């Protein structure tokens, strides 16, 4: 089966600051990122005919076209949490393949840190009542405790240890230390001990919601970025080697009376994406897996078929996930949401680093990286969430 080469990532940009202060808005972050990503692609502002936006930052889907001054003939405001950008990249590839779009712009900008959004710990908010809030608000659940419940069941059901979960944080931090923007991020966000970390460091870090430790939880930064995806005709004339979107998959899942909380929607979308791409998980060189928490990564590694369900603990031990490991796949070479960038939604950064790897531009470059996989997870793992998978190939 011939590999699809209909649409490619041709331009990327990661907004460098993780603390922007009150003088910068999320819309401004998006506009700057969009301009720089188009420059990276060698394209002009007016070349954009498709806009993909999660409508945070004001103005909604209608506002983004106005703010940027663009006139799209394709628009998609899919918003399913942090995974939105994988859903949008997938939709862009499909629109381009159908001839409905030539140059798609995805952008993200957030001031979650400067706004002091207590995303993980705030507990139930106010707002118009619905079936979900009425059944959930009285119990004091926080976002982090929801993820912690998945980790606890994973430990109970499979015997996964805290040490094995820590391996995810350790590999990610090692990659972050090699990424100057991630190191700066940790300084600006006042991390203690900005260095490679050990199992003891992770297990000694404060328990936020048992059994999740601080060093298993992502940061809340400011930031953003943009991705430009184009048709094959445009891609072949782009400034840099195109990174082809060769397979896509999407799914959602939610709490249910007899559901296995340790299985995510990735168990459904992963096989769809790999089937679409015509590649097996074992062929993937670089895995950009949404790391809101260690348990998110553990779950996605298993559900996407890198190993059997429940065997993620053994799979991540012994340094496999490092960029210079002889085994595949390598994990989160930018430093992840754990140690580099997570302004509330992280999906776009998965696409950016996967692209760097397949262009040969990463700060933790995997030798001869040919295939990458971006797995976005949004919402509440174990409860209502979405998992979209984008499989990418080097030119």
């Amino acid at each position, binding site marked *: 089966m011939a590999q699809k080469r209909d649409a490619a990532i041709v331009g990327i940009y990661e907004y460098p600051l993780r603390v922007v202060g009150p003088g910068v808005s999320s819309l401004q972050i998006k506009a700057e990122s969009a301009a720089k990503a188009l420059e990276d692609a060698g394209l002009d502002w007016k070349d954009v005919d498709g806009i993909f936006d999660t409508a945070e930052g004001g103005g909604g889907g209608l506002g983004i076209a106005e703010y940027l001054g663009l006139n799209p003939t394709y628009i998609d405001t899919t918003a399913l949490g942090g995974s939105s950008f994988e859903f949008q990249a997938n939709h862009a590839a499909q629109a381009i393949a159908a001839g409905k779009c030539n140059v798609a712009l995805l952008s993200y900008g957030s001031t979650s840190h400067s706004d002091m959004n207590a995303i993980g710990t*705030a507990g139930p908010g106010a707002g118009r009542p619905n079936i979900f809030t009425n*059944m959930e*608000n009285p119990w*004091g659940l926080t976002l982090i405790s929801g993820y912690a419940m998945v980790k606890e069941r994973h430990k109970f059901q499979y015997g996964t240890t805290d040490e094995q979960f820590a391996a995810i944080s350790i590999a990610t931090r090692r990659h972050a230390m090699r990424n100057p923007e991630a190191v700066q991020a940790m300084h600006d966000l006042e991390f203690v001990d900005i260095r490679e970390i050990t199992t003891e460091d992770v297990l000694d870090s*404060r328990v*936020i919601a*048992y059994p999740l430790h601080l060093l298993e939880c992502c940061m809340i930064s400011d930031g953003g970025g943009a991705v430009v995806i184009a048709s094959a005709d445009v891609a072949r004339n782009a400034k840099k080697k195109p990174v082809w979107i060769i397979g896509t998959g999407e799914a959602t899942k939610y*709490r249910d*009376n007899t559901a296995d909380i340790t299985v995510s929607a990735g168990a459904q979308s992963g096989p769809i994406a790999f089937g679409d791409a015509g590649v097996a998980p074992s062929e993937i060189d670089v895995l950009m897996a949404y790391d809101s928490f260690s348990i998110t990564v553990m779950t996605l590694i298993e559900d996407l078929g890198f190993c059997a369900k429940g065997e993620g603990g053994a799979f991540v031990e012994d340094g496999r996930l490092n960029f210079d490991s002889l085994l595949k796949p390598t994990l989160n070479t930018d430093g992840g949401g754990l140690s580099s960038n997570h302004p509330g939604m992280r999906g776009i950064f998965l696409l950016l680093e996967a692209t760097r790897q397949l262009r040969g531009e990463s700060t933790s470059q995997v030798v001869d990286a040919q295939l990458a996989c971006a797995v976005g997870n949004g919402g509440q793992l174990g409860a209502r969430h979405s998992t979209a998978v984008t499989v990418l190939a080097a030119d």
Partner: protein
Amino acid sequence: MTTLRPQPQFPEPDTEAFWEATKQHKLTYQTCDSCDSVIFYPRRHCPTCGSADTSIKESKGEGVIYTFSVIMQSRHPAFKDLGAFAVAYVDLDEGFRMMTNIVGVQDPVNDVRCGMRVAVDWQDQGDGHVSLPMFRLL
């Protein structure tokens, strides 16, 4: 004084009957008349087959902890005075899973485990308010 916990709010047609029943300390769930599936959260249709014909049943209020987490210190005004407290999913013997708190434990991190059997422990929220079905260890 501890702020009252966030209360279910109405009108909201799917869960109103469930919460009304808690005022009499009744823990209720639904079953589908067409396919016998257990339905929870309560709603107007069966999520397994789509039927609109459902019945309300009363649970004995006993089950098993499916999983839990301990929030070490909440910043939310209604929960900050609790110190460390457990949120959990409990699988009731009748076949439905609900979110709740585990109460009556001194040290939730060490006292609570997946698989423990529990029974409902009603926490009245005051005159005219609902009662919250929490669970204590058996």
